[in-house]
């Protein structure tokens, strides 16, 4: 069986010549919940964008066995859902219902199927009955949940999250942690919050300077104080 994500020798430079990713090799199994940790500017967000085919670069990326390239991009986008760091970028439609329906409608599903998916996705994230609301009427926590619903309605096999816990208060962060834990999909989360990563991840990938520094067991990596401090991080509070 192929891995959910397979990255081989991926390198990427920004247009100004700055190296963002350098020789990344990574395999993520289906159903695995991985946290990408690293300091600001480490390349976490860039790696997530490369996985979903938003960036080029050298090397190869395979999603569910399909190579990420122009030919496969529509299939890839149906398999991998990207949840951006700012929910306001993710929620661009006039109502929450239209936003959650946006992906399924673009997939060519019938209106009835779309309605069912919208209802299910909103229920999963705890926003049932709020479909008629405009995104700017939602709280920060609700926006975050709504952004996740826009991805869930497409039923992707893999979901990437960029700083999903950003600007959430402890209660909403706990709700999010609970939600992410119960999702059956392969999850890849980029985060600077070590406590959050520690609580939701089954494996860790530590990135710094565009390179993978360490990957594997959560406790082994995250409780290594020297390793974490060397890369501008801290060990989680237990």
């Amino acid at each position, binding site marked *: 069986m192929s891995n959910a994500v397979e990255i081989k020798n991926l390198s990427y430079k920004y247009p100004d010549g700055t190296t963002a990713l350098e020789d990344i090799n990574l395999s993520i199994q289906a159903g695995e919940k991985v946290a990408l940790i690293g300091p600001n500017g480490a390349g976490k967000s860039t790696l997530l*964008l490369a996985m*979903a085919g*938003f960036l080029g670069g050298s090397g190869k990326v395979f999603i569910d066995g399909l190579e990420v390239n122009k030919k496969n991009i*529509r299939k890839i*986008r*149906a398999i991998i*859902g*990207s949840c*951006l760091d*700012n929910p*306001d*970028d*993710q*929620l*661009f*439609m*006039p*109502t929450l*219902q*239209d936003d959650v*329906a*946006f*992906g399924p*409608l*673009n*997939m060519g599903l019938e*209106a009835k199927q*779309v*309605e069912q998916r*919208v209802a299910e996705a909103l229920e999963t994230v705890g926003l049932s009955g709020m479909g*008629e609301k*405009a*995104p*700017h009427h939602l709280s920060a926590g609700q926006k975050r949940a709504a952004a996740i619903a*826009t*991805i869930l309605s*497409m039923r992707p096999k893999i979901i990437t999250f960029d700083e999903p816990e950003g600007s959430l208060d402890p209660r909403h962060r706990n709700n999010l942690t609970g939600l992410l834990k119960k999702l059956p999909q392969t999850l890849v989360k980029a985060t600077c919050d070590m406590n959050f990563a520690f609580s939701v991840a089954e494996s860790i990938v530590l990135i710094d300077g565009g390179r993978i520094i360490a990957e594997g067991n959560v406790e082994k990596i995250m409780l290594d104080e020297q390793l974490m401090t060397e890369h501008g991080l801290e060990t989680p509070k237990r």
Partner: protein
Amino acid sequence: MHHAHIDKFAYQDSVIHRLDSRVKFIVTVLFTAVVISLPRTSVSILFCYAVGPFAVLVLAGIPLRFVFKQILIVSPFILVLAFSSVFYDRSEVRIAFGPYFWDITTGWLRCFTILGKFIITMMALIALVSTTRFSNLLCGLQKLGFPKILVIQLGFLYRYIFILIDRAHHMIRARSGRKLKNLGLKREVKVASSMIGSLLGRSIDTAQRVNIAMEGRGFNGNWHSLSKLRVRAADLIFIFLAAAFTAGLFIFVKPILG
């Protein structure tokens, strides 16, 4: 941050709110066209025309205080335009209202006409946006055959204008926090230019990220919506009443008051 949205009453429920957005849009456009095309001598007729949007606002339960506040907000430009006509057209005319009559200049007459038309058309427009959810309005425009790109742009404008206003407020607050003395006009203009430039840069950045979010969810240039619009008996009655009201005024009231 909390914003006072122009469509904040659009989520209420009333017989007007339940009407099809296409019907409300077409009636508003046609009514506005009729009001604008009235001759400048028909100040008294304008009062009669105001009954239409006034009745719609009352039926929809839209507070009139809110309506006139919105009209005031957008009035400065029209006020300048209206009052400027007082100075360039000074020929005298006599106006009558029932048994009363006054001698005024044509400039003042033109000024009152402009203000009257502005208030009535604004009332009609506010009645439309206060009784129609923006998503339904967009869906209606799309179904009426408006260019797809225009509908998409309007949707984005509605969605992101508040975010842009928030950002501008944050920047102004950040500037105020560090501006400890009067900088002088030249410096102020320079700082304001930088802030506008920064706002533009961030808007472009946001646009790129929104594009990523759209492409990530399979956007291929086609705009789909789940909104369902249906013309029902109530819509047909509304069209009939609106047409009868406008035509009635046009045919019968004009000769009497005009």
